C-alpha cells in the first residue's frame, strides 16, 4: 500500500459517518433495483420454464358441452398444434371445521391418453390411477390452507350428490399459478380450491360422457392466433361456446404478468431517485474534502506528485464510498429478494420459484451509479488537479457575499443577523443550496409514495367492500333458474334481504376494440350493489342500456351516450346494440351492469337469475352457512368478510412488507441527506462558528446560527418535496393502472404529515449531531486554521 493510499484510508476514517450516509443511500437505491429486477427475472424464468415443461396452452375456450368428436375438427384448424379437451366444473365443498361453504373448480384429467397440454406437476402422493374412484388431486394452495395430505378425505357435492373424496396427491398446474375463484381479484385459499379428477368419473357424475366443456390449444410456429380464435369461436357457437381467448386474457397468466408489470414500474422510478441523490451526496462530500485538503494538495504537488496522481487519489476516495454502497446494496437487495420470493409463494404456485439474482442489473446499476458519482465529482477533482501549489498554500480570500434579495423586502429590517447570515450563505452558493433543497425535496417526496400506495389500497377496499357491496354474502347457482329461486334464498335461515343477480358472458365491441367479460344484471331498486360516481354518490341502474366502469369505457373508447355492440357468449347467443347510459367508478376489474329485466328481455329468457346477494342476521349465521353447505343448486358462496379477512392475512401483509421496506429506505435517504447537509454546513462554517463561540456566544446561540440555514433549506424543500412526491406517486400509480386493478391517488393529510414529521426528525437529529460536534470543537485549533 502506498502512503497516499494510507492517507486515503485515514481520511475516510475521519469522514466515516458521512461516507456511510452516502453509501447507505446508494445501497437503498441499488437494493431496491436488485431486489425488484431479480424478482422479475425469477418470476419470468419460473413461468416460462413451467409453461414450456408442462406444455401450457396458448388458446383457451369454455363452452356448455360438445362431443369429443369435435376435437379432431378443432385440431384441423390451420395453425393448431395440439388440442386438449376437458371438463371443468364448480362444486361446493364441506370442510370440517370451516363454518362457511367452500368451493372448488374440479378439472378432468384424461383416463388413458397422456395429458397433452397443461400437464400437472405432482407435489406429493400419486397421480390418479386408471379406474380409481372418488379420488382427487388437490391444488397446493388449498391443500396447504387446510393441511390436506395424500390420504385425507373431503366432502363435495357433485351434481347434487354428496361424495367423500380421497386426496390421492397434491398437484400444481400452469393453468392455476394463481388459484383464485373465477372473476375474483384476490385469492382465498380457504374457501376456494382447484381439484382434478379422472375424466370418466367426473363425466359420469355430470352426464357429460363423451363430451367436454373446456378446450385448450397450442399453436404451430407462425400460426395466426387471431385466426385460430375466430375459427374456434365459430366452431363452438353451436355448443354454447363462451368465447376463446389467448394467454394474455388468461386469468392466472394476467395476475403474474400484472405483478411483473408492477415490479417493472417500481424497479425504475424509485431507485433512480435514490441513486441520483447518492450521486449528489458524493459530489457534496468530495467537494468539501477537496476544499479542506487544498493545502495538502498543494504540498503533494510541491513535492512532485503529478496532477493525475492527485486526481486518481480523489477518484479512489469516491470509489471507496461507491464500493461500500454497491456491496451493501447488492447484499441487501439479495436478502430482501429471498424474503419476498417466499412471500410470492402465498400467491403464485410454481413447481420451483428460485430467487435468481439479476446480475446484469446488479453490475449495471452499480456501474451506472458509480459512473454518475464519478461524473459528479469529475469537475471537483479537475479543480483539485488544476490548483497551482503556490495558490493552494495561501489561505483563501474571504468569500464574497451580497445582501440577500429577501433583505430588500419589508421583512428585511426585522431579520436577525443569524437569519441574514443564513440567507446570504444560501444566496452565495445558489447551486449547492439548490441541490441540497432538491435532495431534501426528493427525500420528502419519496416518503409520500409508500403511504400513497397504502392509502390507495385502503380506499379501493373500502370503496369495493363498503360502498359498492352491501351484502353479507353472494351466492351463485349451478344453472340459471327462474326468479322464484330467490324466494328459496329468502327462506334460508337468517336471510334478511335478498336481491337477484344474473351474470352472462358477453363480448362488447365498439369499432375495432372489444372486450369479453361478465355483464351483471341487477334489480332496478336494488340496494346491495351500488353503482357509484367518482364522488361516491350512488346512481340508479338505468332502465335501458348499460353502465360501464370508467376503465372499461376507456378500454373500449366509448363515452356516455355511445353505442356498444353486445354479443352474448352463452345460452341463446343473442346480439344487440346497447347505449352506454352511464359510467361507474370502480377499481378492480372491468365491469358492466344493466337492469336485470332489460337483460332478461335481451336474452329472451323470461325472469331468470343465476345468483343472489343476501344480507344475513348475525344470530343465524351458522345456521345459514350449514344450510348453504347442503344446498345442491348453489355453486359458490362468497362471504364478504371472509374475503376481507383473507385479504388482510395475505395481500395486506405482503403489501405491508413492501411498504415497510420502501418506507425504511425512504427514511434512510431522508436521514442520509439531512445528516450530510448538516455535516457539510458545519464543516464549511466551522471557523465562523468557532469565532462566535470565542466572542462569547453561547453554544445554543452558535448552534442557532448553524441550524438556521438548514431550517431554511428544509422548510423550502418540504412543499416542493410533497408536490414532487404527489406527482411521482400519481405517475407510479398511473403506470400500474391495469384492467385488473387500479389504485386511485389518495393523498391524505396524514401521509403529508408523516413525510413532514420524518423530515423534521431527520433534520433535527442531524442538526443535533452537528451541534454536539460543534460543542466539542477545539476553539483555538479552529481559529488558527486559515480556512
Amino acid at each position, binding site marked *: 500500500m502506498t502512503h497516499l493510499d494510507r492517507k486515503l484510508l485515514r481520511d475516510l476514517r475521519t469522514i466515516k459517518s458521512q461516507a456511510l450516509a452516502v453509501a447507505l443511500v446508494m445501497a437503498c437505491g441499488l437494493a431496491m433495483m436488485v431486489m425488484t429486477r431479480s424478482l422479475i427475472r425469477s418470476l419470468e424464468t419460473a413461468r416460462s420454464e413451467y409453461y414450456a415443461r408442462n406444455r401450457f396452452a396458448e388458446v383457451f375456450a369454455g363452452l356448455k358441452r360438445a362431443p369429443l368428436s369435435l376435437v379432431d375438427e378443432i385440431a384441423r384448424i390451420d395453425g393448431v398444434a395440439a388440442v386438449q379437451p376437458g371438463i371443468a366444473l364448480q362444486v361446493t365443498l364441506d370442510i370440517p371445521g370451516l363454518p362457511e361453504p367452500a368451493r372448488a373448480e374440479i378439472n378432468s384429467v384424461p383416463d388413458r391418453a397422456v395429458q397433452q397440454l397443461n400437464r400437472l406437476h405432482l407435489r406429493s402422493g400419486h397421480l390418479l390411477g386408471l379406474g380409481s374412484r372418488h379420488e382427487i388431486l388437490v391444488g397446493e394452495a388449498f391443500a396447504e390452507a387446510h393441511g390436506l395430505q395424500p390420504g385425507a378425505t373431503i366432502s363435495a357435492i357433485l351434481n347434487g350428490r354428496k361424495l367423500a373424496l380421497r386426496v390421492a396427491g397434491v398437484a400444481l398446474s400452469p393453468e392455476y399459478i394463481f388459484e383464485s375463484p373465477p372473476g375474483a381479484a384476490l385469492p382465498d385459499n380457504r374457501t376456494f380450491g382447484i381439484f382434478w379428477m379422472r375424466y370418466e368419473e367426473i363425466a359420469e357424475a355430470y352426464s357429460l360422457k363423451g363430451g367436454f366443456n373446456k378446450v385448450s390449444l397450442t399453436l404451430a410456429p407462425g400460426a395466426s392466433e387471431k385466426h385460430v380464435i375466430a375459427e374456434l369461436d365459430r366452431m363452438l357457437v353451436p355448443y354454447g361456446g363462451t368465447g376463446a381467448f389467448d394467454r394474455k386474457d388468461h386469468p392466472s397468466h394476467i395476475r403474474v404478468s400484472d405483478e411483473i408489470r408492477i415490479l417493472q414500474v417500481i424497479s425504475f422510478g424509485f431507485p433512480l431517485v435514490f441513486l441520483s441523490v447518492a450521486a449528489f451526496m458524493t459530489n457534496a462530500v468530495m467537494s468539501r474534502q477537496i476544499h479542506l485538503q487544498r493545502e495538502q494538495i498543494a504540498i503533494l504537488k510541491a513535492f512532485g506528485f503529478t496532477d493525475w496522481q492527485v486526481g486518481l487519489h480523489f477518484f479512489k476516495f469516491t470509489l471507496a464510498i461507491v464500493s461500500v454502497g454497491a456491496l451493501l446494496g447488492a447484499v441487501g437487495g439479495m436478502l430482501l429478494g429471498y424474503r419476498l420470493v417466499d412471500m410470492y409463494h402465498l400467491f403464485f404456485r410454481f413447481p420451483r420459484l428460485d430467487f435468481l439474482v439479476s446480475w446484469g442489473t446488479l453490475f449495471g446499476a452499480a456501474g451506472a451509479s458509480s459512473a454518475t458519482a464519478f461524473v459528479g465529482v469529475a469537475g471537483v477533482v479537475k479543480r483539485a488537479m488544476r490548483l497551482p501549489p503556490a495558490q493552494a498554500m495561501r489561505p483563501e480570500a474571504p468569500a464574497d457575499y451580497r445582501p440577500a434579495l429577501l433583505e430588500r423586502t419589508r421583512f428585511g429590517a426585522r431579520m436577525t443577523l443569524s437569519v441574514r447570515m443564513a440567507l446570504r450563505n444560501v444566496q452565495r452558493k445558489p447551486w449547492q443550496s439548490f441541490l441540497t433543497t432538491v435532495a431534501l425535496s426528493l427525500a420528502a417526496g419519496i416518503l409520500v409514495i409508500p403511504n400513497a400506495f397504502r392509502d390507495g389500497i385502503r380506499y379501493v377496499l373500502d370503496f369495493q367492500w363498503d360502498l359498492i357491496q352491501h351484502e353479507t354474502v353472494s351466492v351463485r347457482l349451478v344453472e340459471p333458474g327462474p326468479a322464484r329461486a330467490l324466494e328459496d334464498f329468502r327462506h334460508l335461515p337468517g336471510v334478511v334481504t335478498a336481491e337477484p343477480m344474473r351474470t352472462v358472458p358477453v363480448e362488447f365491441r365498439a369499432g375495432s376494440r372489444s372486450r369479453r367479460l361478465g355483464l351483471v344484471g341487477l334489480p332496478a331498486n336494488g340496494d346491495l350493489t351500488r353503482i357509484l360516481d367518482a364522488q361516491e354518490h350512488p346512481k340508479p341502474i338505468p332502465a335501458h342500456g348499460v353502465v360501464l366502469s370508467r376503465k372499461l369505457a376507456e378500454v373500449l373508447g366509448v363515452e356516455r351516450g355511445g353505442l356498444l355492440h353486445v354479443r352474448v357468449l352463452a345460452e341463446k347467443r343473442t346480439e344487440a346494440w346497447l347505449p352506454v347510459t352511464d359510467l361507474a367508478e370502480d377499481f378492480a376489474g372491468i365491469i358492466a351492469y344493466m337492469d336485470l329485466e332489460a337483460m332478461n328481455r335481451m336474452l329472451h329468457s323470461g325472469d331468470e337469475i343465476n345468483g343472489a346477494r343476501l344480507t344475513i342476521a348475525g344470530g343465524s349465521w351458522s345456521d345459514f352457512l350449514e344450510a348453504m353447505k347442503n344446498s345442491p343448486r348453489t355453486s359458490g358462496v362468497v362471504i364478504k368478510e371472509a374475503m376481507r379477512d383473507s385479504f388482510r392475512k395475505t395481500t395486506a401483509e405482503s403489501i405491508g412488507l413492501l411498504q415497510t421496506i420502501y418506507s425504511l429506505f425512504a427514511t434512510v435517504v431522508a436521514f442520509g441527506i439531512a445528516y450530510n447537509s448538516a455535516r457539510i454546513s458545519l464543516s464549511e462554517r466551522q471557523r465562523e462558528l468557532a469565532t462566535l463561540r470565542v*466572542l*462569547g456566544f453561547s*453554544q445554543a446561540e452558535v448552534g442557532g446560527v448553524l441550524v438556521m440555514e438548514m431550517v431554511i433549506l428544509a422548510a423550502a424543500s418540504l412543499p416542493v418535496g410533497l408536490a414532487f412526491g404527489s406527482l411521482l406517486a400519481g405517475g407510479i400509480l398511473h403506470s400500474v393502472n391495469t384492467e385488473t386493478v387500479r389504485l386511485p391517488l389518495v393523498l391524505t393529510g396524514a401521509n403529508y404529515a408523516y413525510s413532514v414529521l420524518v423530515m423534521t426528525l431527520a433534520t433535527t437529529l442531524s442538526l443535533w449531531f452537528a451541534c454536539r460536534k460543534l460543542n466539542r470543537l477545539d476553539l483555538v485549533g479552529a*481559529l488558527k486554521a486559515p480556512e
Partner: protein
Amino acid sequence: MCVVAADSPSSAQDPLFVVRGLTKTYGDGEAAVHALVGVDLDLFPGELVVLLGASGSGKSTLLNNLGGLDTPTSGKLNYRGWSLDEADQEGLTRYRRDVVGFVFQFYNLIPSLTARENVALITEVAADPMSPDDALALVGLTDRRNHFPAQLSGGEQQRVAIARAIAKRPEVLLCDEPTGALDIHTGITVLDAVQRINRELGTLTVIITHNAAIAAMSDRVLTLSDGRLVGQKKNPQRLAVQELQW
C-alpha cells in the same frame, strides 16, 4: 520622539489579573508538552502589555488562558477575584462575552456580514456596548461600514476585527499577532487603532507578537521562553506607533 500617555497606568492600582503558578500541560507521560510552567503575573487596568517569545514559548497558551479559551492544568488565574481556573464552560462563555475583546491574526470576521453587522453582532448581546458606528469610527472605518469582508483590504478587515472587539467596551483586549498577516504600513494603522483604544478607553491590552519593535509602544514587555516568564521590562515611555522602528 513623542511620549504617549503620561498618565500611564501603574502597579499602584489593584491588578485586573492575578496569575500564580499557572501551568498548562498538554498530554501526559513522555508525550507531555509543558506549554506553561509556573507563570506568576499581575496585569493592571489600562496597561498595554506586549508578550514576546519564540514559537512554542507559550505566548498563545497564556493569552488563551487569559481570554477564557482554555483552562490551566494547575495554578491560579484570577480576574477581579473571579477564579477562571475553576470556571465551567458556561462561566467562561459569560466571561468572554462580558469582559474580553479578541483580535486574531487572521481577523476571523464573519464573511456573510458587513463590517457594521460584524460589529453589531456583538453589540446585540453585550451589556453596555457603544454603537457599531462609533466603534467603526474609532478605527477610522466609517466610510467602509457597509462593505463585506471580501470587499475590504487585510488592514481594514483587521480594523473591523478591532472595532468588533472593543464595541462592547471590554476591560481586556487580547490581540494574537494582530499584524502577523499584514504589511508594515497596514500593520501601523492597525497598531495605531489598538493604541488609541487603549488610551481612550483605558482597556487593558495584551498583544502577542514576534516583532520586538512593537514592544516600544507598550507599558510593559513580558518575555516567555519554554513556557516560563523569563523577562519583564517596563518601558519608561511608550512610543507612538508612527515612531516605531520596524
